[in-house]
């Protein structure tokens, strides 16, 4: 009889397991993306280093011959997106139907601003879709209300480590994960070098601080008569917080302490001196200097794009995709407008978003998540989970999370950065380096059910109250802080 020592057995088992795991991660999954090394050079070094078999990976989650039915809503492409993205969305659904020919997919695309309203209404009538892809703000709201099923990357064959920690925070409520990030993005600062030159500014240098933005905006307006900075302050439009919050955080302000490493969201800081300074900067540009578009109060970013292309706007915050949007818009221009637009495109420059007075740089960590609903809120009272997981596996795969974010965002699945399409993207999409460089500065919106109201209504209201003169800067900030506090206290 052979005696096996317990110590040796444990050691043997540990070594075998470690070997197996290392082999698995080496062959099937590869080394995880190292976020501590994140830089444009690192992104270039990993791009195109790994191939993925999407259908093969998803077959392990839901067999390819699975027969079922799926209702699915998602935030689709809209007028501000480039045609390239439209093409990839079309290809995704064609590909899904080819990969899973027996799943009857009923998908519905909605715009960013309509999706939340329609989804909320559908939930009230228990008529929601089985799966939904929501903007990053939505995850916590619906998870906290109990509408969503727990869902984590492991449920569709991936690992939580394959996703940005900030993105995972946005789908986590009270320690449980309720969704998977599809794409994540940070915006960058865009300027027109020709306008800078004509206004006597260095054409190749972005304003270093937000105070510089105010100064540059005035200089551009005073010298050339065109708008300096593309301020956006419309209510109920996602564009507004995406452009104002980086400014607020850079000055050291915030709605709560969301810009800190471990936010608690306990104390309202919207009326702190730092937050008021940030609001004052917007006031100075809109009211004092009149150096930004007058239409900022009713405009969205989609309105700034044609202004920029027409050479009527010097600077703005936007996606990497704006370069492609400009190319699309230029194609639609006629006669001399075409040449003018080409001049603007040639002079388009991307840089990091400016810092605050203390060197703090921040940007909204945006993106979208995909979720599965609980059956009781779905039309018919049934959720086809394997079918839902099939589409989620496919959308969040390295391949499709990259392709579906090709021009406008970045893959939610970090392994997307390793694909050959990422390499192709780095070569074809101008200024992608800048926006990927901004990712580590990304701050997620507070992971609270009240966030949509704070970001889409209270913050824009604060801006509008100050910019229209309905309130002073101090009053507007105090009023907004009071509203947030009342909201958090469960007021009517």
């Amino acid at each position: 009889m052979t005696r096996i020592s317990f110590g040796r057995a444990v050691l043997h088992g540990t070594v075998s397991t470690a070997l197996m795991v290392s082999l698995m991660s080496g062959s099937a999954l590869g080394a995880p993306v190292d976020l501590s090394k994140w830089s444009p050079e690192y992104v270039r070094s990993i791009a195109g280093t790994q191939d993925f078999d999407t259908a093969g990976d998803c077959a392990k989650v839901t067999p390819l011959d699975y027969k079922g039915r799926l209702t699915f809503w998602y935030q689709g492409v809209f007028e501000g997106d480039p045609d390239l993205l439209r093409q990839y969305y079309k290809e995704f659904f064609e590909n899904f139907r080819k990969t899973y020919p027996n799943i009857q997919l009923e998908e519905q695309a909605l715009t960013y601003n309509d999706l939340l309203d329609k989804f909320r209404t559908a939930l009230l009538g228990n008529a929601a879709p089985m799966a939904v892809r929501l903007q990053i703000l939505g995850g916590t709201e619906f998870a906290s209300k109990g509408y969503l099923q727990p869902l984590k990357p492991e449920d569709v064959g991936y690992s939580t480590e394959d996703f940005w920690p900030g993105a995972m925070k946005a789908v986590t409520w009270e320690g449980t994960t309720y969704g998977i990030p599809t794409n994540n993005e940070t915006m960058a600062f865009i300027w027109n070098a020709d306008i800078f030159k004509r206004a006597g500014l260095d054409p190749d240098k972005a304003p270093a601080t937000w105070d510089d933005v105010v100064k540059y905006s005035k200089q551009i307006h005073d010298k050339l008569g065109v708008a300096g900075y593309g301020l956006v302050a419309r209510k109920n439009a996602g564009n507004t917080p995406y452009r104002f919050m980086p400014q607020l955080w850079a000055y050291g302000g915030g709605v709560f302490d969301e810009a800190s490493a471990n936010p608690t969201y306990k104390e309202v800081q919207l009326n702190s001196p730092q937050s008021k300074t940030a609001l004052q900067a917007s006031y100075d540009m809109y009211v004092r200097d009149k150096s930004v578009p007058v239409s900022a109060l009713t405009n969205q970013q989609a309105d700034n794009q044609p202004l920029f292309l027409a050479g009527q706007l010097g600077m703005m915050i936007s996606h990497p995709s704006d370069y492609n949007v400009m190319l699309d818009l230029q194609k639609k221009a006629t006669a001399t407008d075409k040449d003018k637009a080409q001049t603007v495109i040639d002079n388009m420059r991307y840089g990091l978003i400016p810092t605050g007075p203390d060197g703090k740089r921040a940007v909204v960590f945006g993106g979208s998540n995909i979720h599965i609903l609980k059956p009781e809120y779905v039309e018919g009272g049934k959720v086809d989970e394997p079918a839902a997981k099939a589409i989620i596996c496919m959308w969040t795969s390295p391949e499709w999370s990259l392709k579906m974010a090709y021009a406008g965002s970045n893959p939610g699945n970090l392994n997307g950065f390793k694909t050959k399409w990422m390499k192709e993207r780095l070569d074809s999409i101008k200024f992608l380096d800048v926006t990927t460089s901004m990712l580590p500065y990304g701050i997620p919106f507070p992971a609270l059910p009240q966030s949509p109201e704070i970001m889409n209504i209270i913050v824009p209201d604060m801006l509008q109250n100050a910019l229209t003169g309905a309130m002073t800067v101090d009053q507007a900030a105090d009023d907004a802080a009071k509203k947030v506090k009342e909201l958090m206290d469960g007021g009517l």
Partner: protein
Amino acid sequence: MTILTGKAEAHRRLQSDKSGMLRKIWSHRADYAYVLPAIVVMLIVIAYPVYYTIELSFFNTPPGLQLRDKIFTGLDNYTAILKSPVFWKVTSNTLIWTLASTLIAFVLGFACALALHRDFAGRGILRAILIIPWVISAVAASYIWKWIYHSDFGIIGAVLVGLGLADRPPNFIDSVSTVLPSLIVVNIWREFPFAMIMMMAGLQTVPDQLLRAAKVDGANAWQRFCHVTFPHLRNVSTVTILLLAVANFNSFIIPWIMTGGGPSNASHIWITHIYELAFGRQRWGVASAYSVLLFMIVMSLGYFYVRALSGNERKDGSV
């Protein structure tokens, strides 16, 4: 004894009335059967939502809770609304919006109807052109007007600057003082053709022989209008004004698409505010309380509308 006899008599009359009513219903049973499906549909799509809205108006619905977990708060929503400065701002906007839109659209429509009532070359074409604002989609019209008004590259601004009449484009919809009048102009543009059509139809009913007789009696155009035409149009005018008022109280598309109620709530009217409260802020309870108040106002307008219609019918001798 007399009292008892009186009571018995009253009871007997009531019984007789009841049986008379039942007899009437029974004799019209086929008519009731015909309208029954419509009544059932109305109960489902109108009565139940009205009941549910009233019920919901007594609950708090914080954004962190599902609607089914709503908290009963009695009349708190109503008191919160009445105490809120936004309510008074929105109410004043709604009154200005409704009164100005209704009256100006009516006067303009009436003037056009009078002008088009006379026979002249190209009348048909002009009539068709004037109806266009009413038949095109309100959504499309709102986007077009947003572009016309645009504070940076709007058509009006470009023309004024181009002609040297202004240094910079006027600010129509990005200013708290001009936004509401600017939206009212759009609304009047959309609605005056409706008033025009109604009044044109009314004008057809004015007896020609009366107008001719008044002319023979030496009445001038203004006197003929005041003493013959207008009295005949009184009922159709009342109905038109009431319909316009109800539509304007319930307006949504133009202010929502053009400004979203902004800037700084300056163009929020009741319906846009209710929509924002319900769908943007998920305050279903407060939004329901607002809706109940609005419902009461619109129902009172509806009462006058029905009275005006009944008045018409009685004068016609049809009832």
